[in-house]
């Protein structure tokens, strides 16, 4: 099955990157997703940001806790399918009230044609809420700056655990032919 990636260069990954920089984020862990391609590239190109590629999303939870223990702000980039891998690990964040910020590119969401993505995509908000996380959803590019700024404040000043959900409406659904 051929999947055509509908992404051309977009502004919103640069908006997120700029705000992460301004917010002092210096560690970025990720499991790659095509929706995060530009943001991962921005972070990898920045000598002041340590990017770490993970083998599973849950490993980003421990990394974020360890970074904060060491005085460094971090973020985790993943696809919605990775959210399910993180659930028990989020005990670390909730039990110790670690600030935590993750950006989740959604699948199984607006316009999804791969039905395998639907179960986890539709479960993202309820399972993250169940683990004490606050979800902020971005549907439109023009809401990105305000939402990311809010997420950074809530996480690192308010000691909250925040997931910014990047809707498939924003990221662009993969078209399968």
């Amino acid at each position, binding site marked *: 099955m051929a999947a055509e990636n509908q992404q051309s260069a977009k502004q919103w990954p640069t908006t997120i990157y700029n705000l992460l920089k301004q917010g002092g984020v210096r560690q970025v862990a990720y499991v790659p997703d095509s929706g995060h391609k530009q943001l991962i590239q921005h972070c990898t190109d920045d000598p002041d940001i340590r990017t*770490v590629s993970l083998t599973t999303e849950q490993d980003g939870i421990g*990394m974020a806790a360890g*970074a*904060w*223990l060491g005085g*460094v702000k971090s973020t985790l980039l993943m696809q919605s399918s990775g959210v399910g891998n993180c659930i*028990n690990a989020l005990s670390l964040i909730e039990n*110790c009230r670690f600030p935590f910020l993750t950006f989740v590119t959604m699948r199984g969401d607006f316009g999804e044609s791969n039905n395998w993505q639907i179960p986890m995509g539709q479960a993202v908000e309820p399972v993250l809420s169940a683990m004490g996380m606050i979800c902020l959803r971005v549907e439109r590019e023009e809401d990105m700056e305000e939402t990311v700024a809010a997420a950074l404040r809530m996480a690192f000043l308010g000691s909250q655990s925040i997931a910014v959900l990047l809707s498939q409406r924003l990221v662009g659904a993969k078209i399968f032919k």
Partner: protein
Amino acid sequence: MDQGNTLDRRDAVKTILADRGSILTVSSLGGPSYDVAAINVDFEQDFPLGGAMGQAVMTALGLALAQPERRVVAFVGDGEMLMSLGALATVGAEKPQNLAVVVIDNEHYAETGMQRTHTGRGVDIAGIATACGFGEVHTVRTQAELEKAAPRVRTGPGPVLISLKVTTEIGPLFARNRDGVWQKGQFRKALLGSP
């Protein structure tokens, strides 16, 4: 139940952390957190996990990357390590010079009724760490090997991994502070000056 290992876990961890200086530790749920706390309970340079199984090595990696001038040692059980073998691959790829992992390997799930783990059935964590690109790896079975390996955990160029083959004795349990918010706060206050 006797798998022929002779080292006592509490004594072995104590040997490794002798003269620890500014070393920071992260330890996994169950036995390893007790082994570290048995030396100095509720110590400000230790961050013991009580859950989130599989996250101790990654927590240590995040800390090691954030604090490159400080030595960071993760103490983890064999069950914990087997749950997060991918973390060894990530540490091997990142190659943090200041990180060491000590697997306290009794070849059993001591917390849950002493069921055997894969390390007692031929799976070699030291071999996995070597294959993942760790700079220095030792399997420690005797007191003499322990005394040689202990300084490498404290100062050897990382990432270092020690597989510590210990008996199934778990050692006495004792009261310690299990408040994660407090643990985070005292660790950061000691390291950074503010919680």
